[in-house]
């Protein structure tokens, strides 16, 4: 295609008044669907799935691509959902992926009947478009919907059905076009490019937010989108429009408190009744100082033990929480900490009832019996000085073997997710009924994930319903909050982050510890 000067002129012309508005929306049903699909994708990475399962995964990934990067209501792609349920899943249901698939189909049903939050925003923007006068004297739409290429047909058909007018483009097609009056980018720019590396995807898609595709660009973020940070899209440092050029709405800022630097007490030496002198369960953890000289420790690596749960608060007092890596926590960041007993009871109870409800009463008992058997077996194994040697002799990498032995002490960890690895451990701990145990553990994994979603929802609801804890936190104190079904929680702003690693049992991570190094029990709070 030959370049036209009008295209260049419209791009430079739009730069003078260019603005970006980023809006984030929540869509729990799509989020659950994505998690469930990601689980199956991960599980089938190493092992060739059956044709039927492969077909289901492919169809689901198309649904995912369409919904996270377009305004179409899920019900409008009914046929794509329907195609999931007509596949014969009998054979798959006998494999270890049965639970994962069952969960995926449940959340797919929920997703189909849910509402796409992008739809309403798109309708609102399109209906406000005055249009532009074309060469033939007719008004033509001046709004461009930028969607994933898999969604083009669905979006056009949805627009027709709603009697709405807008041009529909993919990012690729937009690359050679001039700037419009208004454009709506569905999903973060990364969802409109092809790369498995998210940082590289940000760079390759950066032109969408550094070249004006329209005078006014809306970037709508939903599940699957990367958080919007201008620096992710800088190809050279400083290459961005000034901060006033874009505003983010509906993205809650971190709840942070100004901390005046004062004297920092010495980091406590952990006292624990759990064996610390064994190298298998002890890991290097970093201390975080909270108000009232209370401490909490986290592993530097993200995949060991719990991660910090930070609080986000909007101007209208909207509250949300999110787990982040330790390196993202700063002095002043407000975090939520669970105390000893409040930890996993709710998750286990919810998971048990979910399993019994779906698979018949008594199933959960059997499943959790296997979990207990496996976990205690591996814990015992971790105390055996020959364990590492035996595991590496069985074909595991030393680093991975060590990681698995450590995480047996972590109650958030269940079991290896690869069958051959599981078999190696099961054999070493002399576990019987390996096949049945494997199935049970797969069921627990799905159930725990479901319970995790419910717990998080419960926590956010409780945080929203009470203001008292915020008053305490803002005054620099450590607030205590009893959350129904979860237990006692402490909330406060980080006062200091001393860079002093300390070896401790994995079970002590993420829990409130007193200045003298003892773990704080619920009744002490």
């Amino acid at each position: 295609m030959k370049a036209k000067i009008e295209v260049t002129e419209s791009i430079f012309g739009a730069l003078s008044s260019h603005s970006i508005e980023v809006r984030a929306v929540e869509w729990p049903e799509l989020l659950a669907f994505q998690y469930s699909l990601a689980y199956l994708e991960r599980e089938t990475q190493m092992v060739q799935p059956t044709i039927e399962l492969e077909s289901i995964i492919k169809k689901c990934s198309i649904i995912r691509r369409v919904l996270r990067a377009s305004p179409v209501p899920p019900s409008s792609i009914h046929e794509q959902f329907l195609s999931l349920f007509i596949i014969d899943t009998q054979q798959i249901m006998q494999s270890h992926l049965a639970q994962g698939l069952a969960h995926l189909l449940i959340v797919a049903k929920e997703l189909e009947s849910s509402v796409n939050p992008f739809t309403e925003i798109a309708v609102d923007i399109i209906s406000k478009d005055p249009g532009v006068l074309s060469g033939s004297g007719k008004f033509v739409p001046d709004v461009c919907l930028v969607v994933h290429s898999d969604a083009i047909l669905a979006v056009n058909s949805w627009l027709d059905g709603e009697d709405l007018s807008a041009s529909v483009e993919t990012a690729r097609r937009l690359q050679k076009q001039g700037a419009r009056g208004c454009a709506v980018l569905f999903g973060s720019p990364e969802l409109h490019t092809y790369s498995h590396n998210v940082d590289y995807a940000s760079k390759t898609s950066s032109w969408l937010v550094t070249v004006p595709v329209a005078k006014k660009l809306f970037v709508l973020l939903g599940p699957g989108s990367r958080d919007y940070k201008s620096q992710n899209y800088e190809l050279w440092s400083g290459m961005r429009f000034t901060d006033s050029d874009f505003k983010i709405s509906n993205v809650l800022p971190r709840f942070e408190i100004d901390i005046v630097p004062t004297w920092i007490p010495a980091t406590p030496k952990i006292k624990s009744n759990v064996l610390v002198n064994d190298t298998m369960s002890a890991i290097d953890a970093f201390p975080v100082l909270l108000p009232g000289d209370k401490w909490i420790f986290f592993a530097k690596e993200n995949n060991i033990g719990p991660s910090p749960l930070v609080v986000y608060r909007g101007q209208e007092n909207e509250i949300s929480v999110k787990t982040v890596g330790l390196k993202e926590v700063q002095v002043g960041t407000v975090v939520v900490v669970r105390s000893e007993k409040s930890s996993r009871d709710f998750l286990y109870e919810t998971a048990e009832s979910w399993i019994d409800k779906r698979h018949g009463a008594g199933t959960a008992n059997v499943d959790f019996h296997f979990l207990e058997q496996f976990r205690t077996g591996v814990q015992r194994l971790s105390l055996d000085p020959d364990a590492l040697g035996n595991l590496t002799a069985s074909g595991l990498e030393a680093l991975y073997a060590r990681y698995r032995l450590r995480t047996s002490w972590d109650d958030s960890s269940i079991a290896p997710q690869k069958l051959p690895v599981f078999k190696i451990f099961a054999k070493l701990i002399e576990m019987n009924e390996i096949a049945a145990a494997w199935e049970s553990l797969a069921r627990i994994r799905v159930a725990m994930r479901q319970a995790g979603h419910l717990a998080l929802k419960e926590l956010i609801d409780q945080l929203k319903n009470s203001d008292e804890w915020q008053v305490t936190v803002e005054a620099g104190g450590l607030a205590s909050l009893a959350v129904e079904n979860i237990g006692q929680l402490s909330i406060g702003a980080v006062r200091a982050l001393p860079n002093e690693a300390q070896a401790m049992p994995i079970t002590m991570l993420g829990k409130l510890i007193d200045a003298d190094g003892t773990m704080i029990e619920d009744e002490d709070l």
Partner: protein
Amino acid sequence: MSEISAPDWFLWFKNLGSRIAEISNCISGDKSLRIALSCPSIDFVQWAIVAGALNTEKRPAHVPEFGETVVAWVGSKMQDGTLEASHSTKAALSIKGIGLSSEWPIARVPDGTPVARTPRSLSDLEKEELRKAVGRNSWYSWYTSKCVLPVSLIGNKGELISQRDHLIDHYPTWLTEQEKSLLGIQSGQIVNPNKFQYFPVSVLAPQLADTRPWLRQMESRLVVSSSYTAFRNIDPYFQQGAPHIQLIDRRGWNSVDAHAHIENQVEVHGDAKFELPSPPRGVFARTYFVDVNVDPGHISLDEDLEEFEL
């Protein structure tokens, strides 16, 4: 003369072309300026820069000596000849027996340049347009000063010529009469490397210089690489002494690599911290200096392999 009416961004690039082309060319041992510009679009931007660069008065860095081959307007045409001292008291120089003043625009033609370069005559129409644009009968001196130190535009020849034609045909008010007379040459020879120094602007594919050391050693008033592919693939010795402007289209498929390449160049050579006029919104710049080295001449593939094997 008709009035200029061009958008601000076009005038900015034109002004940039003038400012950078004004910088004297370097000789071996000096440091030569490179400017990389990250733009939201580069279509037509290169022609604004070229037009601006041609507005400057500039002389080649290499002053030819008697006995060297030079290019000049001699005998009503652009042609090569040996530079000699004039035997006449009225002229300082002589080419092909024709006496010329010491101010006459000439440029060295390096050794190895094809010896039988066909002289270039201008059509009556071209002469008339130049006469009108320059406003005097002695237009050829002005015109020759542009030709002997032309602008090199590196990139996709077909695309670049098409953009130039679109600009002149549809937006004539964006250019002055003089700029149009210099850019609007309809001869297909402006893409012929053998005719370098015979036109005010030469449009070249980046690989052309690989086997033409004489082309690399000629001088431009400004080298404009119209894409990452152009400046990545052009021989590093290509007209090193002239300032280079390297354009990056942020919408381009290789934009990430292009920006990374420039960051790397700035890291290796150091930030030139060259002050540019405040760029339009959305245009970002990086500047650095490169050392000007002696061109190694033509290296055949065989020689290359031998060196590699050693």
